[in-house]
């Protein structure tokens, strides 16, 4: 491999009590690569990407993001988190803050930017997500699709090197899925490294460099989309695909 991977996971194991949630997972993601992670419910997709920004502690294995080795030290955790943006299924915007303040918060309090610079940065990201006109609204006044686009803008305001998405469209009304997926396609075209947990196979076909299929806490398959959709090797993946694509 010419470049060192931007995310490097080696032999990751995680338990919830006695339950072995991640089984010896290894994964390397090159800078600019777009990964779609799919698999049945409970297969460990969320757990895996939540380990990458230390929302979940892992038990053993090795995890490196942008050259930073993730360990228990708060310093290593916060450095990794500055490089990793995350978008959640349920948006989790801060409800008492305007859209612009949601976006400017981390630049001010984490990066130490002054308020004006942070606000400018927020407005730039909101404009890219085509939602700058809502900058002074509050989350409760926006539709789900708009909230999710704000959440993407908020994460981008730290100028991360990697973006994680955990089922970003699953909580949306069907008519709003498109606007969020479009934003994600645009982001992918800008060269962002993305790890996306989603069941939107159209999105996977359109932008993914690789589809990773998980089952029972392990990565079962990893292939380019055309290959994965046409000739999934494992029986579990074939079953999964037949359920999800009709």
């Amino acid at each position, binding site marked *: 491999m010419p470049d060192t991977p931007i995310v490097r996971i080696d032999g990751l194991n995680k338990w919830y009590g006695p339950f072995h949630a991640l089984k010896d997972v290894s994964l390397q993601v090159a800078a600019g690569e777009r990964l779609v992670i799919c698999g049945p419910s409970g297969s460990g997709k969320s757990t895996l990407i939540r380990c990458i*920004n*230390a*929302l979940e502690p892992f038990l053993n294995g090795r995890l490196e993001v942008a050259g930073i080795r993730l360990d228990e030290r*708060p310093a290593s955790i*916060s450095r990794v*988190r*500055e490089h*990793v*943006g*995350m978008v*959640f299924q*349920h948006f*989790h*915007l*801060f*409800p*008492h*803050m*305007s859209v612009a303040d949601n976006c400017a*918060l*981390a630049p001010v*309090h*984490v990066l130490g930017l002054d308020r004006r610079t942070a606000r400018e940065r927020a407005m730039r990201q909101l404009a890219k997500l085509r939602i700058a006109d809502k900058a002074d609204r*509050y*989350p*409760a*006044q926006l539709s789900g699709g708009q909230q999710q686009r704000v*959440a993407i803008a*908020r*994460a981008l305001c*730290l100028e991360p090197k990697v973006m994680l998405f955990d089922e970003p469209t699953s909580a949306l009304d069907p008519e709003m899925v498109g606007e969020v997926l479009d934003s994600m396609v645009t982001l992918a075209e800008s060269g962002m490294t993305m790890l996306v947990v989603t069941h939107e196979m159209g999105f996977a076909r359109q932008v993914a460099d690789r589809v990773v299929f998980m089952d029972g806490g392990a990565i079962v398959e990893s292939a380019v989309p055309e290959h994965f959709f046409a000739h999934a090797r494992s029986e579990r993946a074939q079953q999964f695909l037949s359920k999800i694509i009709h």
Partner: protein
Amino acid sequence: MSFDFDYLLTQWPALLDGLWMTLQVSALSILLSLLIGVLGAGIKLFRLPGLTQLVALYVELIRNTPILVQLFFIFYGLPAVGLKLSLYWSGVLCLSLWAGAYQIENLRGGLATVDKGLREAGAALSLSSRQFFRLIAIPIAFRVSLPAMLNTAISLLKNSAYLQTIGLAELTFVAVDRIATDFRAIEMFTAICVIYLALVAVLALLAGRLEAHLQRPFQQ
């Protein structure tokens, strides 16, 4: 004997002095009790070792003993161990500690409504838990807890009347003091009742304004 308004007019300057003292002591104690509330609720939320138990003990102690006993403990008891506070600061300390215990519990109720997802969103943005507490959890909890916190503040204001027992010249003290010489009980107690009612009304009005302000982001 009839209700003598002219008498009240002659006592108005003394009552105003008492009112001013009540206002000062209560306003300062309300602010300090809120500070105690934020600190105590924070300690309990983060389960800081040692301090958590201390806060729990403090809350139980305050809630399960009479405020009058707490006041006497501070004013008559503490000097025996070398801590002698002025009338004024004994009063402020008593009211702040008393209301602080309730504000801790009020805020805890509000903090419990803060979605775990928001905490994760904050963490994902690299905010520290302290930053999350200050910038997100507390503002959200304040809105939820405001009605309960207002009740505590109103009780504090009313309980400031206990301070007359140690001789602090607040509103009730002035009234009782005058009655002892002039025997105009009905006039005096009517007057201070009206004043207390007005103070509570003002406090409720201010809280209402604050609530409307905090509520704004949550309206569609």
